[in-house]
């Protein structure tokens, strides 16, 4: 048994202190320790993108990051974007464009798109497709997800 390590992580604006095994993945820490089950766990090896969260503002795979590495950082999960009564603008765009069916990939799509919208101009839909290429959806065929991110990007640029 390896020694546990004390960490303090800000998650969605709230500080959490915990003692964790080094091998605990950030995805499992969020889901199991903090009960934030909005972050989904799909492939658990960095391919599907469902577990994407923001760490200090950058999108990361929470299945490829250890909770100990999140010590002292600011994590944002899908729960930070809004809730059922008050959807955030990107969530609203997904609802409006019908950009989800089963919803499994949606938290990762939303967090990836949040980072893309901050970092890239996304002039063309090809740029959006490139940006979403690390997130797998098995229902929608991606068309409506691209449309939702396009809508969010246009609203961003109109401001």
């Amino acid at each position, binding site marked *: *048994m*390896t*020694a546990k*390590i004390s960490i303090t992580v800000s998650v969605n604006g709230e500080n959490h202190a915990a003692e964790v*095994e*080094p*091998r*605990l*993945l950030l995805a*499992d820490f969020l889901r199991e320790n903090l009960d934030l089950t909005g972050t989904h766990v799909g492939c*658990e*090896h*960095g391919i599907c*993108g469902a577990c*994407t969260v923001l760490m200090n503002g*950058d*999108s*990361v*795979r929470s*299945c*490829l*990051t*250890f909770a*100990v*590495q999140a010590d002292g950082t600011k994590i944002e999960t899908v729960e930070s974007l809004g809730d059922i009564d008050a959807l955030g603008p990107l969530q609203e765009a997904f609802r409006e464009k019908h950009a989800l069916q089963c919803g499994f990939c949606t938290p990762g799509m939303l967090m*990836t798109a949040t*980072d*893309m919208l901050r*970092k890239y101009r996304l002039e063309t839909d090809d740029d959006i*497709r*490139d*940006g979403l*290429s*690390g*997130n797998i959806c098995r229902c929608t065929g991606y068309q409506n997800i691209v449309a939702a991110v396009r809508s969010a990007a246009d609203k961003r640029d109109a401001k």
Partner: protein
Amino acid sequence: MKPAPFDYVRASTVDEAVAALAASNGEAKVLAGGQSLVPMLNFRIVDTPIFVDINGIQGLDRIEETTDGGLRIGALARHFALETSDLVKDRFPVLHEAMKHVAHLAIRNRGTIGGSLSHADPAAELPTMAVLLDAKIITARASGGREIAAADFFVAPLTTTLEPDEIIVAVELPGLAPGTGWGFEEFAQRRGDFAVAGVSAIVSMDGQSVTESRIALMGLHDTPVRAHAAEAALLDDGIDAAAAAARLDAEPMNDLHGSADYRRHLAEVLTRRVLTAAMERAAR
């Protein structure tokens, strides 16, 4: 929890990191961006009892100009930093182009140049860029660091000349002559996937004649390699001869992404494309 248990050491300096590696008698490994390592841990392909996390080492991610017109890139520079660096775009546009093909944003936010070179995937962009651009790989070790030429660094898939207690601290890219033309092409099944095959080149010209070229092959050998026969053929007989030679230079494998024959075909086609682009871009 998918990975097997391990002990975790957080290094805040290079000295601390190499001391921890030396103290482990070859048992410890370095954890940098983790984008290739952690999947292997989750699958339990790798079972390492101690990890030395170098993410907290301040200043190891700098991208700095060198006096010869090149760059010194700290081992912890993230792929996203290379992708968006004006220095990289200005001095090594071929590297700027290659970075657009590296995985996905969330991976690029974490993955590091030191990690990519240490991991040494023969189909990855950064090891190929190191070979194309004659990188010097600067390492540290408790017993003293060294410089390793990229041409001597890669031994086999996922295998380098790094010793178990040695880490990369920086990568130096010597400056290119003004007016050097460049080309980069890769074929992958999906954007961001590892390349089935890729070719990159830099070319210097005088009038209509090529005076110097380097051509590097990606995913076409068990390491990234220079296509020396193709370079010679380009000088003597032009693009078509070079492309045909690159096909013969390639020794690709068969796998579910493509047959060896298909990869050889790609070597020829992509070599023709990158040389055409590089010669068009070169100042005469």
